[in-house]
């Protein structure tokens, strides 16, 4: 019984401590932040390895050069924007373009501040393994895809060819594209990037043909060379109406975003994150070490940092 009374008293005490005034929903830091007197930065990590590489390098430098403790939180893209606006995370380092969120949080509510280019340009497309494209060069044009549908068939796609899509959090128009381009394919969702990579590697091991949604920059290209299938060219605004879409995906310069409060008062950490900018080759080097050589993100970041001092020296606030 005593335990229950204590619990009740405890919750009452908490209510008094938190004050009976209004609670600020825009300042909701993680309970693990700034524990033990350390200055903490909370970074959002998305599930793909490129994003993990950004965070690993930023984390290492924040820790060893600037003396911060870094918390990583894995959240999907759209919820990450939400968390960023509430101050649960301080920064997103790799955003693939979310116009709706940008309008809401950056322009209307001003709770999020753009942090500039990451230096990497992202591109989504359809890919076939290069060993297959070499044997059948015409597969790289979408007009010939129907000819190969039977070779891309799996148990899951039934009588049609399989177009493998990944995580539900990724931007995709594939279902509409397949329909509008009149392709004899079924979009099969792997459900997570992990599952998709595992399946791609499995196919590659057996030299089997496959067609997949994939994106660049991505470390997996180093292991399983893939060739892009040409879709009708992208033109500004051709993807506005999902019902009628008939064109490829755009090339997106990836962006950084910071919580506004953090951007203004985050001191050296915020200045550093704004300066952070590297190339696709740099990112891939770290990503490959993490994902394929199974190095810990810390070790992979350390290895890159040791070899590229001039690059990151630039990022440190003077």
């Amino acid at each position, binding site marked *: 019984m005593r335990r229950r009374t204590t619990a009740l008293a405890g919750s009452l005490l908490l209510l008094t401590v938190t004050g009976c005034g209004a609670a600020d929903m825009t300042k909701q830091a993680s309970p693990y932040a700034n524990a033990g007197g350390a200055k903490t930065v909370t970074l959002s990590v998305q599930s793909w390895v490129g994003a993990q590489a950004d965070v690993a390098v930023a984390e290492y430098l924040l820790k060893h050069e600037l003396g911060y403790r870094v918390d990583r939180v*894995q*959240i999907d893209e759209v*919820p990450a924007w939400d968390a960023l606006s509430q101050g649960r995370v301080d920064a997103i380092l790799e955003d693939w373009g979310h116009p709706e969120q940008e309008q809401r949080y950056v322009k209307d509510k001003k709770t999020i501040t753009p942090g500039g280019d990451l230096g990497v340009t992202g591109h989504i497309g359809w890919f076939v393994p290069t060993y297959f494209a070499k044997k059948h060069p015409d597969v790289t044009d979408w007009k010939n895809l129907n000819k190969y549908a039977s070779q891309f068939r799996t148990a*899951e796609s039934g009588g049609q060819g399989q177009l493998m899509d990944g995580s539900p959090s990724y931007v995709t128009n594939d279902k509409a594209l397949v329909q509008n381009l009149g392709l004899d394919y079924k979009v099969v969702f792997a*459900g997570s990037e992990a*599952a998709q990579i595992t399946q791609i590697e499995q196919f590659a091991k057996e030299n089997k043909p496959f067609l997949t949604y994939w994106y660049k920059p991505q470390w997996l290209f180093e292991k399983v060379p893939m060739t892009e299938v040409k879709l009708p060219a992208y033109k500004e605004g051709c993807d506005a109406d999902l019902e009628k879409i008939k064109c490829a995906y755009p090339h997106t310069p990836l962006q950084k975003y910071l919580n506004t409060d953090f951007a203004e008062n985050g001191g050296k950490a915020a200045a550093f994150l704004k300066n952070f900018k590297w190339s696709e080759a740099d990112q891939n080097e770290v990503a490959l070490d993490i994902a394929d050589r199974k190095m810990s993100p810390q070790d992979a970041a350390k290895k890159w940092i040791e070899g590229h001092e001039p690059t990151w020296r630039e990022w440190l606030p003077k």
Partner: protein
Amino acid sequence: MATATASGPMRLTGIGTLLRHRAVGKLVLLAVAAAVLVPIANARWASGAWPDALTVDLTSPLGRASDWIIDNRDSHWLFTYFLGHISNAIVISVRAVYLVLLAGGWAGVVAGAALVAWRVAGVRLAVLTVASFGVCGLLGMWVPTMQTLALMVVAVIAAVVLGMLMGLAAGLSDRIFRVLRPVLDTMQVLPAFSYLLPVALIFGVGVPAAVLATVVYAAPPMARLTALGLRGADSGVLEAVTSLGTTARQRLFSARLPLARKELLLGLNQTIMMALSMAVIASMIGGAGLGDRVYQALGTVDVGAALAAGIPIVLLAVVLDRVTGAAGERLGADAQGEALSPLRGRRGWSVAAVVTVAVALVARFAGRLEWPTSWTVDIVEPVNTAKDWMVDHLYTGVPVVGGTADWAAHFTTWVLDPVRDGLQDLPWWSVLLVVAALAWTIGTWQTALTAVLAMAGIGVLGVWDKSLDTLAQVLAAVAVTVVLGFAIGIATARSTRLERLLRPVLDVFQTMPQFVYLIPVVALFGIGRAPAVAAAVIYALPAVIRITTQGLRQVDGAAMEASRSLGATSWQQLRQVQLPLARPALLLALNQAVVLVLAVVVIGALVGGGALGYDVVFGIAQGDLATGMVGGVAIVCLGLMLDRVTQPTTRRDHGAGTKKGA
């Protein structure tokens, strides 16, 4: 894990025949009703899939609701004066616990945990506790373990308080009990996945949402067992206490609650187990700690790292389960043995407290608060090597039996596809009819009505086809689970040695977060529905094996003896005595298989299971309330329907608190 035990009374043949007669009667009634209603329905809406005329599109209202929440979250009083305080209180409590754990340092935490285990459950469990925490540190997971522990402490306390309040109300008032029961029923068949999204939308991703989702998931067993304990109190004792002239309040505190101590402790045990099983799922909405490490490792297809974070979760579960379990067993038994010990009662606790503080202080002054980095063992490398070997050698082209990928393809084409297509081709009203018939034969007209309404709700939501796809996966997985589970269960019931051998394996599979084995499953079976089914089977199998074993073991010895004396062979004995007598247990095992499989088939969407699970995952990932909620509610309906169709109503009170958590 304390699994639901089945202790059904022997069914007399007379009653059996009567029941069968009643079932026939029900079916005839149903057939008459169908004969009238079906032609009408057919004429109006035609057969085939669920008619469009009977669906409701919730996309725009749900979309508006979600926009409203996001736009008003920073300003509306509901948030700033109510929900915001809840969120802050959770953050502050979790932070407080976390800071205490950090201040104690690893030595202080280990010492404290070991001493508590020693006081509550004896020396052996204290040693187990030290070893388990040691392994968490050795795996390099000390800080995440502490984060998870802090979150668990707060979530479990909240769930226990909430559960006890509900349980007290239900235990003391018959009316509240009647009202609360369907609510608790529903809370228990809800797959946790389905309410992640609304919680995350209101509180934002992060610890508060994770804690609240965990509380919703973990409170029902506490409520049920509290109510059960209060209702089951020995009436003789209560009468004696009443005759002493006590008030109702005094009776509650001096007699009813103490008498219900065993149930309360079992409730605590179940609540802890369920809270821990949420640790990983909650990481999808930013729960941090060990769950987050598992989830992140999956992003890089790193089974080794996922395992390194999964093992501490298993160890925490094992320690907490054994300690609370032992505490329950020692209740009442401790009176004599303890009385002789010089460290009994309060003195023992003060010694424990003093030692803990002393150890923590020593560690602090020695500057050894953090787990030393040199004391870590890297298991990532070997585990991944082992996984790669498995994949290289088992995936395909194994002589005679074929590789795992071939099995998966065959399973998809020969089992999953026909079942799904068959279900989807059935006229919608016939599905409702089958559901009604099944639910009514084993239950009352109320259960049948609930089941039919749940199924109809799916149609109204406009996800009929997807739901039948999920249903097909569930049915296939349940079939495999039950066949394997009964076979292994029968074997373990006959051999104690096999049971002892299997016990730790079952423990691990029941507590290992499902996410950990999703990747090996993909590596072996490719992506698609087959691996989702495989993961579900792995998850549900232990509970089925356990309940089967227990049920068979508890069969009346006299009946066995009698059959043996009549010269029955052991096969005849099994078939004609044991299995029929253990029927209630076997039915419970079936029900458990259904509930557990449903929970995992949804997570199977992460490896290509598609259907409803995919909608929910999509909703969480894209912040799309409409898609996610409709998917979630449909899963709940499916769960309710399956639960009603597989759980005989008369047995409803048994195993009450221990469902889903088994």
